[in-house]
């Protein structure tokens, strides 16, 4: 890849997984139509899920998953020390994700229930930013590969990129998706940050808010609408705490 005949140096990227389903990493190998171009624009130094090559000399570290054990804290600190840019990839890394639902329970009891008399180490779930400084956050469950590509272009080629400030609602309008409230479904699309291209409402499911709040969300209007449509406070609050993105906003 050259610009005016000058070769750009490929960024050295490493991908690491912590407590998660590894679905966000998998998105990097999906979107097959641009896969070859994407991979040839970067240099993958370490990506355990798909490669046995393991280098420690990287510029950008993509981190998937939340932190739930002592050894993860140590591993993350080492990575932070090596990476120039550290990116939290996906809702688990950004907010704790669904893992965080665990924090509402007594962990000793949870351990006894699952492992009986042989409990395994587990800590309350924390997002990456609660352990080390984070340079970029790419939320989503899973992340949108198109958005990851935009951000990589931004980092390599200075292509301007800004996280969408607008809500998911706007993208439903662009896709001609009928509002899920019209189908008597609860939907967080009006208060959730867009950029995902609204696949859930288009697929028949109201938004669950995996990308966290949009800029300046109108919570008051949203709560009023949800109430008018007959959704209980419990339903609304369960929905908003599902991925952990609205924790601060609530």
């Amino acid at each position, binding site marked *: 890849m050259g610009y005016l005949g000058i070769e750009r140096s490929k960024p050295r990227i490493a991908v690491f997984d912590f407590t998660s389903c590894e679905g966000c990493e998998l998105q990097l190998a999906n979107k097959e139509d641009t896969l*070859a171009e994407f991979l040839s624009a970067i240099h993958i130094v370490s990506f355990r899920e798909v490669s046995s090559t393991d280098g420690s000399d990287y510029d950008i570290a993509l981190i998937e998953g939340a932190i739930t054990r002592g050894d993860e804290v140590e591993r993350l600190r080492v990575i932070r020390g090596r990476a120039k840019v550290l990116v939290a990839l996906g809702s688990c890394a950004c907010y704790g994700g669904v*893992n965080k639902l665990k924090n509402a329970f007594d962990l000793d009891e949870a351990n006894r229930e699952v492992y009986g008399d042989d409990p395994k180490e587990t800590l309350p779930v924390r997002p990456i930013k609660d352990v080390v400084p984070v340079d970029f956050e790419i939320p989503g469950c899973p992340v949108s590969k198109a958005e990851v590509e935009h951000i990589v272009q931004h980092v390599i080629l200075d292509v301007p990129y800004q996280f969408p400030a607008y809500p998911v609602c706007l993208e439903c309008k662009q896709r001609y998706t009928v509002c899920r409230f019209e189908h008597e479904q609860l939907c967080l699309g009006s208060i959730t940050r867009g950029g995902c291209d609204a696949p859930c409402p288009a697929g028949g*499911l109201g938004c669950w808010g995996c990308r966290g709040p949009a800029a300046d969300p109108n919570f008051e209007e949203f709560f009023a609408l949800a109430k008018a449509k007959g959704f209980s406070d419990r339903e609304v609050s369960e929905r908003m705490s599902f991925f952990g993105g609205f924790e601060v906003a609530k």
Partner: protein
Amino acid sequence: MKIDLDVDVHHLTRVEGHGNIRVVVRDGEVREARWDVVETPRFFEVMLKGKHYSTAGILTARICGICSIGHCLASLRATEDAMKVTIPEAAVRLRLLAKHGETLQSHWLHLFFLAAPDFLGLSSALPLLVSDPAVVHLARRLKGLGNRLCDVVAGRTTHPVSLQVGGVAMMPAREKLLALRDELKRSFDDIGKTADLLRTFEIPAFERETEFVALKGENEYPWIGGRLVSTDGVEHAERDYRKMTNEYVDPNNTSKWCRLSRPSFAVGALGRYNNNYRWLHPDAAKAAADFGLAPVCHNPFMNNVAQLVECIHVTHDAIRLIDELVADENAPTMVEVQPRAGEGVGAVEVPRGILYHHYEYDEEGRMVAANCIIPTTQNNANIHLDMPALAKHFATDGMTDEQLTLLCSMLVRAYDPCISCSVH
């Protein structure tokens, strides 16, 4: 000659999740041979408590980034069993079509990106971008088709949105289904090329007598629900899954272990093949014969071949399903659900083997108790017990630490483990 060998793999690569291998051979004798899962537990069964029935499928899909559709389907089946819901025929077909999409994307991902590099002497598939781009494009096309099937039917490949309690949210547009049908037809060319590539792989000659567990095919190769069967002749109803799994805690593993007639058993493509080979599409059965795959096959490395065989079967079956769906495109895909108290079990054959979800709901449709038993959880003890047999088999003159490390790693990868899933 004195044979001393050491294998020490910390966080095995090219598998989903975190596990370690340790083998010590002294004077030709296996002193230690272990496969241990060290993944962080997430406590999904605890998180599910109190959740509304409509949430269970959305939450449990997040157990796994590769087989999220399988988890969602097992979850829906357990919930619908508990609430006595019968979904429409069209929804049954759509769910199986989404499942086939997942089987294709997952098997192709494993064969090309996780397993193939070992047979080609590479550390990953990435160098192929330069040395043999045609293979990468082959992989890209096949895996892409699997993903598009999922996108069209389930709304998204990873963490589906259209698969809901009561059926499937909507019937995909006719033209989208027909376009997929064309693509599936054309993909047999690519599958043939993949078979040619696989034929060049030297599959390690290693066998250990193993019991294989799968859903029992009654009239067709089984994927969603039905009786449970093993190659040792054990058979149980879906609801009696615990008699098939017998989970217990091992002190060195965050994944639980399972056993049945022997100290361990195996599930997955090879397990399905060994129990249900007679229901394969003739083209798939022919491919199996071409590769020397015959029931009951006790070589775990042949799971790679069984995955290819299943891809052929599934591609044919996906075409059949699309034909049936477009023949009645206005058929209902959803039924109303009334929450009620009850207990239900869902067993689904996901890419890595049989998966069970078991739920208990109160009268408001809130979860009282949940249990999920994952295919890799069932395989972990078997992999662990394969390890000393493999080490013994290959601890011969001329074997090096590097070669044995590669063989042990290839063994684990052959099971295509989903480790974070197995710990959940």
